[in-house]
């Protein structure tokens, strides 16, 4: 049995990657607190949540997909398409948000469903299917319009600018609450439902899962649908944040999402990982951006450099952990 012994408590090996990410987050926060004036406040962490709520929601969907051993490259484009559809429907025909948002969520889920069906029914690599989905969704944005469309719907903007005050002058946006609800529901589903456990089993060994009588095909289709839904919801949250729809929103964001999930300790080969890790992964990415903005002199491209380095370290760590637990 691989366990890490800390004092008298021992932690099962499966929690190690999450623990590493958690320690990293705490360490980064402490370094920031020592280096910069006014960094070590609760609001800094809440701001990370506020600025990355959409990323968190997308990462939840991606976690489902990666746990089955798949990948979804279409998420960034689906986000862009969602912002575009929302903005154009509210600007042009003047649809109210309570019609637009459900429609956008349905479109996102539908796209995911179709991709999942293709992956399962024709037994095609998810990489290539979702790559096609990525081009398709991005292309569809430009059939709506090539320019940025501002969102001026009063209900929508009012909701977007709502501040929910917490104690001690700290506040969050409604998006954060939505994201945390999504995380909580997803964590429950993964842990306490048969579907959730099928996700892990499928990622562990698809062949075995089939022979054990699990609904592998249905599971795979469902995770892509979930990812599509989460991307669309992420798109709605991004619309709150940007108050515009634009075909160039969220370019390359699928890679940020994958990076967050991997840094959160989920194995790309599937079958191992936790949602808590994904949350921590998103927080680490967000904190890197915060630190670089506090540094002031560094260009924002340094974010990419740090994410790149972190990814290297984490995939090497994953290798180490899986080699150790196989023994």
């Amino acid at each position, binding site marked *: 049995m691989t366990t890490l012994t800390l004092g008298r408590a021992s932690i099962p*090996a*499966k929690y190690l990657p999450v623990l590493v990410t958690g320690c990293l987050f705490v360490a980064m926060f402490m370094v920031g607190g020592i280096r910069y004036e006014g960094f070590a406040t609760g609001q800094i962490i809440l701001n990370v949540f506020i600025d990355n709520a959409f990323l968190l929601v997308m990462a939840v969907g991606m976690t489902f997909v990666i746990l089955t051993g798949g990948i979804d490259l279409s998420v960034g484009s689906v986000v862009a398409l969602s912002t575009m559809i929302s903005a154009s429907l509210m600007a042009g025909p003047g649809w109210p948000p309570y019609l637009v948002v459900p429609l956008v969520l349905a479109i996102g889920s539908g796209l995911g469903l179709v991709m999942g069906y293709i992956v399962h029914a024709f037994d095609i690599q998810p990489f290539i299917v979702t790559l096609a989905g990525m081009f398709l969704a991005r292309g569809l944005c430009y059939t709506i319009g090539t320019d940025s469309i501002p969102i001026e719907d009063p209900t929508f903007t009012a909701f977007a600018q709502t501040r929910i005050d917490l104690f001690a002058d700290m506040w969050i946006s409604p998006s954060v609450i939505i994201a945390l609800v999504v995380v909580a529901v997803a964590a429950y589903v993964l842990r306490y439902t048969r579907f959730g456990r099928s996700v892990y089993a499928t990622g562990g060994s698809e062949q075995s899962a089939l022979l054990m009588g699990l609904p592998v095909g249905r599971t795979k289709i469902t995770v892509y649908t979930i990812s599509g839904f989460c991307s669309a919801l992420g798109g709605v949250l991004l619309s709150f944040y940007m108050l515009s729809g634009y075909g160039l929103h969220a370019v390359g964001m699928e890679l940020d999402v994958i990076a967050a999930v991997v840094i959160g300790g989920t194995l790309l080969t599937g*079958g191992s990982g936790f949602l808590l890790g994904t949350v921590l992964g998103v927080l680490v990415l967000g904190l890197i951006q915060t630190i670089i903005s506090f540094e002031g002199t560094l260009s924002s491209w340094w974010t990419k450099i740090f994410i790149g380095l972190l990814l290297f370290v984490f995939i090497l760590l994953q290798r180490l952990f899986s080699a150790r637990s196989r023994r």
Partner: protein
Amino acid sequence: MATEPASRSEAINTERGDMAVPAPVLTMGGIGKQFPGVKALDGVDLRLLPGEVHALMGENGAGKSTLIKVLTGVYPADAGTIELGGAPVAFGSPLEAQQAGISTVYQEVNLCTNLSVAENIFIGREPRRFGRIDWKRMRARAKKLLSRLELSLDVSAPLSTYSLAIQQMVAIARAIDVEARVLILDEPTSSLDAGEVEQLFRVMRRLKEEGIAILFVSHFLDQIYEISDRMTILRNGTLVGEYLTRELSQVQLVAKMIGQELAALERLHGEAKVFDRPLIEARELGRTGAIEPFSMTIHEGEVVGLAGLLGSGRTEIARLLFGADHAGSGEIVVSGSVTSLRTPRAAMGHKIAFCSENRKADGLIPDLTVRENIILALQATRGWTRPVPREQQDELVGKYIKALKISPPNPEHLVRNLSGGNQQKVLLARWLILEPRLLILDEPTRGIDVGAKTEIQRLVAELSDGGMAVLFISAELEEVLRLSHKVGVLRDRRLVAELPNDDSLTTDVLMETIASGASQMNASEASNVDASGGRAS
């Protein structure tokens, strides 16, 4: 292979009428199954009695797998009836069979090693409370179920932390949780070592006491004789008969399986040969953590057997001699001059060939044809810029297909579609084409049927008569004895003895040499070898 088709009358003649036989749990009668161009099963009967281990015997291709697949609903039967507990049944899928109480555990453990032990037992039918999975109850039930198998595991630990043998037990636990009346074990022991097999057998005996009927398939005759009460023998898709295990000797069994008396079961080397031309000599050769320094000389035309338990250092010796691993100490002398075999390529330059133990992972490429697989090593020695002419390929490949009786004799057949024995022959052919002076065979007969086994053994004897030196590694001591001129015995990564194979050397002596000082050897294994040795003589 069979000389005459099995007759129905022989089946009737066999022991069937003993008085104490309880009503069968399962009866299959007159089962027939036709595949395009092949009659896979023809009029096969099988009955399983409660509380008995029933061995299903036959060579590869005799129809064992097909019969199991018909029984468990993978294939529909073309003819015949299946009765479970007296009522006729026909299953549409393995799941239906399982729900009716017929569970199957396959050779490869079909579980998810990333999930916990408890989950692997219950996934798909987890106990739930208010719609959510009740983890506490699941763990408790898993613990209880495993204690029925005399196992005490941490059920919340991932399955990957346990050995293959334990994983197999967990698969059995999963199978019997569904109120199994019939448990089918299809080659469960082929990747287990002796201690693990013993553990499995303990579990099987316990289940037997509970009244479960067990259908057991294995290539290891010793195991069949240790665990089974009754056996049904198939040959070429037809029934040979049903026998009580204690009333059928191993030689009779083999004869019935292949349909002819087996002269080959006797020792293959009759007269003593004199070996005076050393081919390869290891002097204090060793590698830390793999094998203690050892010395050994292999002469031209000599077959040297290596005996020892799994993990005792047999394969490690082979890898050192082939240059697949670097020696930490000592030297290798080939034909009188000290050589460093730093890579397999260097070893191949000295005409040393190595047939690895794991033919699927290390040796054969399943998606290439028989011809391409055979030609591979020859091509590698020539370099990729000088392709072997197609005519020469066809000629060589044809020659070896014929010599080794590779079936089907079609050089363009994909290797993945060949049976285990024939795949092994393809691997052998690949190395024989290089005309090696030393051929290292690591478990060449594992998992292949008796007929192919005998052919490979005969081939080894012929090759050594022709002057080739052979290093023969096998877990089956009788096989090592039958073939070798001398036997090196390994224990705990140390070469403990080098015994000349004369009349005084028996499997018992080998067992003792392996066991002396090694505390893991338990009495039942020794008696197992005893018993089988006694039967074969």
